[in-house]
């Protein structure tokens, strides 16, 4: 980075050459990275609470209407759900490897892993689309056209509201993550990251893993727990 240092030394007038990606209110790149990571974690805490509120609603209605939750679990496609779990955890692996590649300065590998992560994220969304379409065809979307055979219909509508609320917001996070990664991959392609500064890769990684964790909880709670009752 000798070129960057000299190029950035001039206009300051204080004679202090530094890394081009070091903001002036930080003393070292390490400190800057630490602050950025901490800020991202604080954001993720608010995200945990955001999904936490919805999960609280899920828990409460599950306590109230256990029969509807049994029916609901059986309505969901466990094969597609499990496939999506594998796809998403796989994308977390490729994301972690992408961050590792950025950290070690392997530019081509960084771009490759990021693109693979995006491809897996897209696979998840496509599978989710087919799941939603099946629910649409069965009129299982809560609303005036909701139909469900049997006496549990009103409770089932609550189950499906929570199902679409939770998985829909999760899918929205996936779309945001996908957009984020496309920008990061472009930056990596342009050679914007160095082993000294790869903060955007690290932070998008944290976001992507968080979205993965949300699904790790949604999959058993929606698809699995009440299956055998």
């Amino acid at each position, binding site marked *: 980075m000798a070129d960057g240092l000299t190029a950035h030394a001039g206009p300051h007038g204080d004679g202090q050459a530094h890394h081009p990606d070091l903001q002036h209110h930080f003393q070292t790149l390490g400190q800057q990275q630490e602050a950025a990571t901490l800020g991202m974690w604080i954001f993720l805490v608010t995200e945990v609470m955001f999904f936490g509120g919805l999960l609280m609603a899920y828990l*409460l209605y599950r306590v109230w209407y256990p029969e509807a939750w049994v029916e609901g679990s059986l309505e969901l496609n466990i094969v597609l759900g499990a496939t999506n779990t594998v796809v998403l955890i796989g994308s977390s692996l490729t994301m972690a490897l992408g961050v590792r590649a950025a950290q070690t300065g392997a530019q081509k590998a960084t771009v490759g892993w990021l693109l693979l992560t995006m491809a897996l994220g897209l696979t998840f969304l496509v599978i989710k689309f087919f799941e939603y379409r099946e629910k649409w065809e069965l009129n299982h979307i809560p609303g005036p056209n909701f139909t469900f055979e049997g006496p549990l219909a009103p409770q089932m509508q609550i189950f499906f509201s929570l199902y679409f609320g939770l998985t829909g917001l999760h899918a929205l996070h996936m779309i945001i993550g996908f957009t984020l990664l496309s920008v990061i991959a472009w930056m990596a392609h342009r050679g914007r990251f160095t082993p000294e500064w790869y903060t955007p890769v690290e932070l998008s990684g944290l976001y992507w893993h968080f979205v993965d964790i949300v699904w790790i909880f949604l999959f058993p709670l929606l698809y699995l727990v009440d299956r055998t*009752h």
Partner: protein
Amino acid sequence: MYYAIFGSLMALTATTVAVAFVNLGALNFPVALAIAILKATLVILFFMHVKYSSQLTKLICGTAFFFLIILFGLTLTDYLSRGWFVAPGGTAGAGTQLTIGPAAPPAGEPGAEAGEGEAAPEP
């Protein structure tokens, strides 16, 4: 090491899917939740590098789960304990479940009895 974590996550996913087909009664929910928490812990510690992060980052991460437990814990202590004790003049079922759906006019109302009375003499 990332591959080993991925392998563990896959194994845990297979376990939780397999267990879902076994009726453990009341245990199904805690088992599935325990596996999910274990998987999330692996992701947080290794994929998200919290194991190698500063104490401050660990603390912030911990607060998320601390407040989550308060949210779930305090809410459920209310809802789950409703009907345990009956106040003078109250009923044991008060507030335990929200009744929704059509039909089922409250028992004892004239409309409900009249409805049954009409249906009964038919055969």
